């Protein structure tokens, strides 16, 4: 894939056409969980429900592991993967905490204090120095 101008933003997966293509079936699987009948099917037999979507084995494993950042890396988009989070009863803010590697309380406190500052978080090079 060609290098993209936003590739140097740290800790961010820009959901562009390449990611959308890669993650198509993963995202369609996730969004299926917006419907109760599909949630029931996934509860009853997770593997059988996943098998209805042409996901790669890596994507299926990331679903099994609930590896939220890996799901994004494999083409998932947060508006889709959050439906899997909701299936597990995880509220959006706690999902964000998990993805950023913080405890729920620390993340919540950071948001109440004004959020994550853009300073030091604009370029990958700034993270590499840390």
């Amino acid at each position: 894939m060609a290098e993209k101008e936003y590739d140097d933003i740290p800790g961010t997966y820009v959901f562009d056409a390449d990611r959308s293509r890669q993650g198509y079936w993963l995202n369609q699987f996730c969004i299926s969980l917006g419907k109760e009948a599909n949630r029931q099917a996934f509860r009853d037999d997770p593997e059988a429900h996943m098998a209805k979507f042409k996901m790669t084995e890596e994507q299926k494993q990331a679903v099994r592991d609930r590896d939220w950042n890996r799901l994004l890396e494999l083409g998932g988009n947060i508006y889709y993967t959050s439906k899997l989070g909701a299936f597990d009863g995880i509220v959006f803010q706690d999902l964000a905490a998990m993805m950023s590697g913080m405890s729920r309380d620390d993340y919540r406190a950071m948001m109440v204090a004004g959020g994550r500052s853009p300073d030091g978080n604009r370029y990958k090079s700034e993270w590499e120095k840390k």
Partner: protein
Amino acid sequence: MAKITAGIACSHVPAIGVAMDQHITEQPYWVPVFEGFEFSREWNKKNKPDVVFLVYNDHCTVFDASCIPTFALGCAAEFAPADEGWGARPVPVVKNHQELASHIAQSLILDEFDMTIMNEMEVDHGLTVPLSVMFGDKTPEDDWGTLVIPLAVNVVQYPAPTANRCYALGQAIKRAVESWPEDINVHIYGTGGMSHQLQAQRAGLINATWDQQFMDILVNEPEKARKISHLEFLRETGSEGIEMVMWLVMRGALEEKVTEVHRHYHVPASNTAVGHLILENHA
């Protein structure tokens, strides 16, 4: 003729809707968010619109990955609140001004904006939260108190339409509305934002300085605001901050000079900076 008299910018954080639906707006966490809407609701009663043209984005509720229209105009008679995985919000069905919506669709397409036309559509929190902000608590049995023409903009799959294109679309919407003979009062909403990133290791990014500057230039120097690049939105305001292109549609539909009658900014609502403006057209 129909006239756009005001533009409203408003974040559409789902948690704002949840707080209203669960009646927890008096909790300390929510008080500063809702205090900033008190003026807006009073203003809205005094300046009641006949029609709201509401620019928002669908969050993979109606448009999943299989179909991603850049601009989709709601032309159905009505739009039911969608089940986003937790049951539908307990708010009224949204009713359209169908003749005006059809006129706008036709006018925009002849004006070279190639719209997708939606004759059946549900609407998610992106549309209903701003209505709740402006019209207050409503039950499913109530009426919203206005007709609504929804315009769904893709901001989920990159690239969203550019700020410049959104602004130009706003100008075309103004022309379309003003060529409708009925004497009606139209408000236009630009929703979403402000700075927020919901994903990955950088989740939680908020850029209050940028947000405030954006509001300043959007109001007073829109020609500058329309030049903001996608890269700037992504880097400075987080991956989901790019929703703010929808505020440009609203701004483009107003006069060059506007009066800012209200501004509200608060961090946080859940993961997001809440921003809200009411702009009145001169004359």
